[in-house]
């Protein structure tokens, strides 16, 4: 699917509003036909980047290339990008047909061809025969598809999507995620997708750029971000994590021992963590094993005794909250299967995980935002 050709490239892209730097020296490139996401909490500058790519904002400095051509000075109506707006921005007084035909009319495409292309496009997004409907007659998901059809019918080099699922209810959002990914696969157009929902980004994207305070913190495939987060922010923001705070006790090569309350946890030191400083430890719940006190511990794992505080059974998986010491709890996710032993509240258990799955970061990057990220 992805070829080596680059559709969109930004270099050192920066945007300032007065004293405020909304986007700070951002660079990335998006290969043709791929699904690229910009992920970050609200206010991180992702929408501003999108608006610079589509031409509604001019970069303070830095460049935007589309299809290899520098487009900084080209107005939005002459760029080969199309934008699906956060609130969709469908023209309320025009029919579905007129909405989709709008861009073709601006290009003076012959009438017959317009009719044909609109029809084909509506079929493609699963809305055949909707031509004469008024916008207010459509459901949320249908509006969504019209907004996308309106852009795709112009065969843009790249389709930009600004949190288009934000307005939908949860169930529809889940459904549209898969729809969108399938659609992108089918049409093969490059998508740049903006979201603050890591689940959306993880499900759909080929590549994700995680943003914080106007900068890109890490770019990578979803698995890469998940398995080897570059910073504590990525670790906290992408996927579910156990987060423990402590202080470095000792270090040997890449390994550090961190004192977390009465416990001592061994993990991999990440760049930025130095000396005997405060540290944040992240462990994915999936990487934690749970067993009876007598169970053998796998080779190289560190084990801690604990008490089951909560057990939540969600069909395919079971979640346990295990208290290792007072005030230090850890979440464990185990696949539900007949051979897996189940525990109940107040059971004495043992949890274990590998130091290789334990990421130790400096506490500096996550300051005031830690809390808000967790709740997003």
């Amino acid at each position: 699917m992805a070829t080596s050709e680059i559709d969109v490239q930004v270099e050192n892209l920066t945007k300032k509003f007065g004293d405020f730097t909304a986007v700070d020296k951002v660079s990335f490139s998006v290969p043709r036909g791929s699904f690229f996401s910009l992920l970050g909490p609200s206010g991180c500058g992702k929408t501003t980047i999108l608006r610079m790519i589509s031409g509604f904002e001019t970069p303070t400095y830095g460049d935007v290339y589309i299809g290899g051509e520098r487009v900084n000075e080209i107005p939005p109506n002459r760029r080969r990008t199309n934008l699906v707006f956060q609130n969709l921005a469908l023209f309320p007084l025009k029919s579905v047909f007129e909405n989709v035909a709008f861009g073709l009319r601006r290009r003076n495409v012959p009438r017959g061809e317009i009719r044909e292309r609109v029809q084909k496009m509506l079929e493609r997004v699963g809305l055949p025969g909707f031509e004469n409907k008024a916008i207010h007659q459509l459901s949320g998901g249908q509006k969504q598809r019209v907004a996308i059809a309106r852009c795709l019918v112009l065969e843009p080099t790249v389709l930009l999507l600004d949190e288009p699922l934000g307005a939908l209810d949860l169930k529809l959002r889940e459904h549209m995620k898969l729809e969108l990914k399938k659609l992108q696969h089918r049409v093969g157009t490059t998508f740049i997708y903006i979201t603050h929902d890591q689940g959306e980004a993880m499900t759909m994207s080929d590549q994700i750029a995680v943003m914080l305070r106007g900068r890109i913190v890490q770019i990578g495939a979803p698995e890469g971000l998940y398995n080897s987060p570059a910073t504590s922010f990525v670790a906290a923001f992408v996927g579910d994590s156990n987060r423990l705070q402590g202080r470095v006790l000792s270090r040997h090569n890449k390994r550090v021992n961190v004192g977390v309350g009465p416990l001592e946890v061994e993990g991999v030191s990440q760049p930025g963590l130095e000396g005997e400083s405060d540290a944040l430890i992240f462990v994915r719940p999936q990487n934690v094993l749970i067993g009876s006190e007598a169970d053998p511990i796998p080779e190289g794992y560190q084990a801690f005794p604990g008490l089951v505080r909560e057990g939540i059974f969600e069909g395919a998986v079971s979640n346990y909250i295990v208290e290792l010491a007072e005030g230090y709890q850890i979440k464990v996710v185990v696949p539900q299967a007949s051979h897996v032993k189940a525990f109940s509240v107040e059971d004495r258990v043992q949890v274990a995980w590998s130091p290789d799955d334990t990421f130790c970061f400096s506490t500096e990057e996550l300051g005031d935002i830690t809390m808000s990220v967790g709740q997003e």
Partner: protein
Amino acid sequence: MGGIQNNSKKSFKPFPWFRVVCLIPLLVWIFVLLVGPHVQLFVISFIKNRHPEEGFYLGNYIRFFSEPLYWRIFVRTAIYAIVTTFFTLSICYPAAFFLAKMAKGRWKLGLILLVVLPFWISELVRTYSWMIMLRETGVINWIMVSLGVFSKPIEMLYNDYAIFVGLSYASMLYMLLPIYGVLDGLDDTLIEAAQDLGASRWTILWEVVWPHSLPGVTAGCIIVFMLTLGNYLTPTLMGGKNSLYFTETIYNQFIVSWNWNQGSAFGFLLLLLSGLFVWLGLKFTGQKLTEVVR
């Protein structure tokens, strides 16, 4: 972030000089048609008629206060306006309440349309309609004489009562609509809650409905007072020869006596009175003009 983006979106313009092109008509309008004229009105009210060379002159205002004729008319006009305002309020409040809280669905919409309709019609036609009702040879007299209630026709036009009827009729809608607006916005559950808590009908009216409707009442009173104070048509057509209205004295100074300076002073006093009342009304209820005009 949100705020910043909104600002940047607002700066979206059809062409670079858009703001200037929009600003020019607005500034011309404000300065040539509003500010300039009122400044000029103010200035020439301090100039002696036919003797501008004498410079600053207070005579036009002194004359107003020293000649009882003028300030009496002034005070009477103000009283007319106040009485009319209260009269209109007392007639329109129950009607607005009916429309807002008792009429429903299609009826409500139809009735509102029906009430608004007469006020689209020219003020002159409305005044004339009352004239042919009240005249000595008018419709009411014809009915009364035909029924034998009156032995001979009575002139019901050209007196104070006729003016009140005319003035109230002219401005009723401007009282009705704002009150209707606030009453319509009053949640019925509030009234029900009060009932549930054991309030009597009058207590509900006094403790719940009336306070809630105050903004609308203020807006209505301000508009009606101002319209009545500045009315010229109704008092001249329906009032008697000796119930002169202040706008008529302004007209007389301008068109009959050709003393614009005196007329301007009178005009300015009228503006002052009207402005004072508006200000008091707003101050009293803590509202802003920009909110009231909505």
